[in-house]
């Protein structure tokens, strides 16, 4: 009886371990599409003494469209449009930015935890951690996120966005 019981305990233990590992894997595989929805809405950030940045992000299917502008003393000094779309092959979002009167560029967005997203230029996709400049966005609450600029693994600028709507 003892002999029969021992293998059964080992089998049960192994089954339990398998379930734990499976649960951890599921937990680690973040749902990028769902997490990106945290960006939806209108946001503002005081980027300088007289300048405020405004973001307005709407959903478009599983993608997002964003309009932004920088206002200094009541005047728009910079504006642009963005399209963000999910790419299944890399399990990340591409974000294309067209600033008015400037060059178009493409960034990659990827949530690394439920509230933290890393961003880097498409040029650095092979080795994002060695990108000359990369960003990290962290949702401190549903109504506030910080954007940290990082160069050579050193943060050098932090902006705080708060929800307007």
């Amino acid at each position, binding site marked *: 009886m003892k002999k029969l019981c021992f293998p059964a305990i080992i089998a049960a233990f192994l089954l339990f371990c398998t379930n734990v590992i499976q649960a951890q894997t599921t937990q680690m595989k973040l749902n990028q599409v769902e997490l990106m929805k945290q960006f939806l809405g209108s946001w503002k950030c005081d980027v300088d003494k007289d300048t405020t940045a405004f973001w307005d992000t709407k959903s478009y299917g*599983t*993608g997002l469209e964003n309009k932004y502008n920088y206002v200094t003393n009541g005047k728009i000094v910079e504006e642009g*449009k963005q*399209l963000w*779309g999910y790419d299944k092959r890399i399990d990340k979002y591409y974000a*294309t930015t067209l600033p008015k009167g400037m060059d178009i560029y493409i960034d990659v967005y990827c949530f690394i935890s439920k509230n933290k997203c890393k961003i880097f230029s498409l040029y650095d996709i092979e080795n994002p951690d060695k990108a000359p400049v990369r960003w990290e966005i962290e949702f401190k609450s549903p109504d506030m996120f910080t954007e940290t600029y990082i160069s050579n693994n050193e943060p050098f600028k932090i902006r705080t966005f708060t929800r307007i709507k």
Partner: protein
Amino acid sequence: MKIFYLTFLIAIFLSFRTIIIQAQTTQTKLNQIELMKQFTGIWKCEKDDTTDIIEDKLFGDGHELYMKTETKGKIIWEGKSIIGYNKKSDMLIESLLERWIPNSTFLTIWSVRFLSTNKFEEILLDEISNPEKATEKWIYELKSPDLMINTWMNNNKVVSVYTFKRVK
């Protein structure tokens, strides 16, 4: 005297040739940003019970577009895109967020390159290193200011040709 004359003639010939080569290079270097502006406006293509609409608006030197395909009055596909010049890559890039109704959305990124003053081709940015072997290719040609022909090619074979007329 004869040798001097011959050398002089060769020198003139060489400098003439240089001028021609320079002129040809200038001619082939097309102004991508300016040429793209010809395509702004609203375009319509009607084929059987399907209508395709392209709305192309300027945004600075770039473009913002809305496109849709309607069959029997219902939208079956729509997309939003932005086109702009990227100096680092020295080309126009289009980012297209397309939606197959009801719920499939994806983003594709295209390189845009003018082949002549009235014709440009689009290749997926992933395939730019080997454009001859591009799986998918779109060619847009302005036959007149109010008539545009769009050709969709797959593995260098024509799949469909769309004739668009300018509405506005």
